[in-house]
């Protein structure tokens, strides 16, 4: 097959603070054939996005150095040597890019219609009117309902999935030959992710274009890619057809990536992580023993929630107020040493439940019984005693740690507030012990959060909660922002800690596979309503509610989905 894009010996270095040089991409070569989808897979820091951005020359000029013998051949031109104005003509017309965050990639002060029409007017000779009507067709093509009306909407009036659709419409407006999609579904819910993947696959077929799809999640790739390129720390570990990658992976790293994502039909004691595969002795077989999950009779109930509701009042107009129900009559029980999974799409109210339990939001009505005491009725002073017993790990490890505190300060602060430990010395040694427990070196105590990667920061956040020895730990999308491989490590850590300290978890996530893996009981929420509560195996094998079935159907199933017809 003829190649549309040939990347040869691409080498990208970055100039860091001081005179250090960091080699992000170490001489990689790969091809994108015409009319096909190539997936570039790897963890954060593997150089996948850098490679893609150097193709369209969107790397920062001041710091990025692309070595002189690198070549990016697109239709007979080396893009790296092209004059700036010629490159600009290609960008957006022949090659277009979709970014990860649709909200920050769209300009909030222009209507989406304007933004799609702008691309057309920049690259074609269309009049304003022609561009507008073409934009409307495109909106229709990417599946936005009622495009005529939606053309005049501003980005914030659309949902995340619709915003991503607008981005795609913008990208395909000029019928590009190559579409670069940089983690286009990572920020989206499973159900929306499924729709967007289908849309991209569909458009690729219809427009006969090539797609370079960048992701950290191999499971996503299986459904749409023809070829897969696996990258790790700036090097290509394996490149092959999707079939070969999924059925006969050669490199241990590929094997590791394939198996570290929890799957719906298996529940090993510990998830295999990348280090297991790179070790000569391989994965420890003991860890692959299946774990039994579920509430049992005789479980001690730590936390009981009855009819918890939360309403928000929004200002509507000058004087009017409108009530939005975020959570409606949620009731559930949490047993000691067990995990309750909370699943739902964005806006389903699952996070609100977590925050209300901790009184980070004030509940509108209902009871939260903890040791027989209703937490919602306690005064602020009395509640402080209970605060340390319910803790929360937030979603974004980059935002939840104070950047001006050292890790030591972060860990010691809660102990000081709750007078845990006799003196500074004892607290320091307790903090050090916890760091070791969550798998971080002692030296971390003196470092600042910005010196750690996402997974390490999440470990710090977990260690901060552990300082208070909580009975209940709420994990609010705690692994959602992490790469699949790192996610496995953090999930293993959470599991180990539960086994050791008999903590109960409330695990909030939109990722059903993860929830299935870690939970004993699962509660499905949709638009503030509790749709279904059952033991986790039960819910996955025999979903009762239509909505649960829809959610289950959208889990990316890797390679098998496209080969085995669904029963």
């Amino acid at each position, binding site marked *: 097959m003829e190649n549309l894009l040939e990347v040869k010996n691409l080498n990208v270095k970055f100039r860091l603070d001081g005179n250090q040089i960091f080699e992000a991409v170490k001489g990689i070569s790969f091809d994108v054939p015409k009319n096909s989808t190539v997936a570039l897979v790897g963890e954060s820091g593997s150089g996948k996005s850098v490679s893609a951005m150097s193709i369209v020359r969107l790397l920062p000029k001041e710091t990025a150095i692309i070595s002189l013998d690198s070549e990016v051949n697109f239709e007979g031109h080396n893009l790296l040597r092209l004059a700036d104005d010629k490159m600009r003509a290609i960008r957006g017309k022949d090659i277009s890019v979709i970014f990860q965050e649709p909200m920050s990639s769209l300009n909030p002060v222009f209507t989406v219609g304007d933004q799609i029409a702008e691309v057309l007017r920049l690259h074609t000779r269309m009049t304003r009117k022609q561009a507008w009507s073409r934009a409307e067709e495109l909106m229709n093509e990417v599946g936005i309902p009622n495009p005529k009306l939606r053309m005049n909407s501003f980005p914030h009036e659309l949902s995340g999935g619709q915003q991503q659709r607008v981005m795609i419409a913008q990208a395909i407006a000029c019928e590009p030959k190559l579409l670069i999609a940089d983690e286009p579904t990572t920020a989206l819910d499973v159900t929306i992710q499924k729709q967007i993947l289908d849309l991209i696959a569909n458009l690729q077929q219809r427009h006969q274009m090539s797609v370079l799809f960048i992701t950290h999640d191999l499971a996503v790739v299986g459904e749409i890619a023809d070829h897969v390129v696996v990258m790790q720390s700036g090097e290509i570990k394996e490149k092959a057809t999707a079939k070969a990658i999924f059925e006969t992976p050669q490199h241990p790293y590929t094997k590791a990536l394939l198996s570290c994502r929890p799957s719906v039909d298996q529940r090993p004691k510990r998830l295999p992580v990348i*280090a297991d595969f790179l070790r000569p002795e391989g994965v420890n077989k003991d860890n692959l023993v299946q774990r039994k999950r579920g509430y049992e009779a005789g479980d001690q109930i730590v936390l009981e929630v009855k009819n918890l509701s939360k309403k928000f009042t929004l200002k509507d107009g000058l004087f009017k107020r409108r009530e939005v129900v975020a959570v409606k009559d949620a009731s559930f029980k949490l047993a000691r040493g067990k995990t309750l999974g909370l699943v739902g799409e964005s806006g389903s109210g699952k996070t609100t439940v977590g925050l209300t339990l901790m009184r*980070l939001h004030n509940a509108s009505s209902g009871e939260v019984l903890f040791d027989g005491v209703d937490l919602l009725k306690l005064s602020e002073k009395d509640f402080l005693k209970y605060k340390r017993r319910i803790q929360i790990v937030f979603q974004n490890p980059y935002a939840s740690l104070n950047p*001006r505190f050292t890790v030591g300060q972060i860990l010691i602060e809660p102990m000081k507030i709750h007078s845990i430990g006799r003196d500074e010395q004892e607290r320091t040694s307790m903090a050090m012990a916890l760091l070791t427990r969550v798998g971080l070196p002692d030296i971390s105590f003196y470092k600042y959060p910005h010196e*750690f*990667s996402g997974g*390490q920061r999440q470990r710090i956040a977990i260690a*901060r909660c552990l300082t208070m020895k909580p009975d209940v730990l709420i994990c609010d999308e705690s692994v959602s922002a992490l790469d699949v491989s790192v996610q496995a490590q953090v999930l293993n850590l959470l599991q180990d800690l539960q086994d050791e300290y008999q903590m109960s978890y409330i695990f909030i996530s939109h990722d059903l596979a993860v929830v299935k893996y870690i939970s004993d009981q699962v509660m499905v929420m949709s638009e503030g309503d509790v749709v279904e509560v059952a033991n986790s195996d039960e819910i996955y094998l025999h979903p009762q509610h239509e909505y649960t079935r829809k959610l289950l159907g959208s889990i990316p199933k890797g390679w098998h989905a496209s080969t085995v017809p669904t029963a």
Partner: protein
Amino acid sequence: MSAAFMNTPSTAPAAPLHQPSPGLWMLAWRRLKHDKVGMVSLAVVIIFLLMMVGSYTGLIAKNWSKEAGVSYANPSFMAGAENLEAVRTKADPNAIKIEPVDLSDIDPLAPRYKEWAERTAKIKTTETPRAETLPFGGDKWGRDVLQKAIKGAETSIFVGLFAALFAVFIGTTLGAISGYMGGKIGDLLEWFYNVFTSIPYILLILAFAAVFASSPQLAAYKGVPMVVAILAFTGWTGIYRLIRSEYIKHASREYVKAAQAIGASNSRRMFVHILPNVSHVCLVQLSQHVVQFIKAEVILSYLGLGVPVDSVSWGTMLAEAQSELVIGKWWQLAAAGISMAILVTAFSMLTDSLRDALDPKIK
């Protein structure tokens, strides 16, 4: 991105234990060190500060008020220039001496004149020789302009620095409360701010000056402390606004929620958690306001509301220079103007560099 995830502690790179890692301030300092303009400005500012300390402790410019030269003494580099004012004040040896009229017959005190003359002879009077030229010229009373400028710098920088410190303190405290608390308290402070800023700035300063000066209790603090107070009470508004918006932004951040979750009190969240994260804004505002207040002090002193007549500041020097310039004595204006321009420029450029160093995302 460069920090690869480490699975087990054993794979961590061997680093010496207890080596404190560079905090954000350290990193900012490193960035500042690479900025040549910033470092030169910093050096200039430090020299001025040292000068201020030196003159305060009396190491330099101690004798600024001594009338060391002739009136409007020429600068040494233009010694030969004509100085009519000095000539006029000196006793003219060529003047025609007129014999005093003898009044001893009718003067009842006449018999005691001799006694008095003897007494005065006993008192030693030393006529200090007045220099014809001074390094950078002299003022009307023959005081050294260079020393005056140094002493004036002390007053001006003192006023600028302390007024800025107070203004940042007021602005930060109110801004933090308003931004963090929001609701009714926030509204109240916003109203207060709006009323405050609706009054024209100079008018507001004049009003404060008038009120302060007429109050008998405050009259004791007249002079430099009062100028500091006036400038601080009128100059906090911009800082308040900025800090408030920063607090609104930070109050909803996850790390503040996390602090709430571990049981940190409101004041702890406001001042222990958020404040260090907005402190770069305070610092930049501080240096900007130092510049602004040095200029404001000059204006106040020029208007006669600033420092008292027996002390000197750049403002009073400029006020004097107004009448001197008419008779061609430019050096007092030059001394005050140039030193102020150097300091203000250096401070502004330092502020710019500080902003870049503290907030690398803007670059």
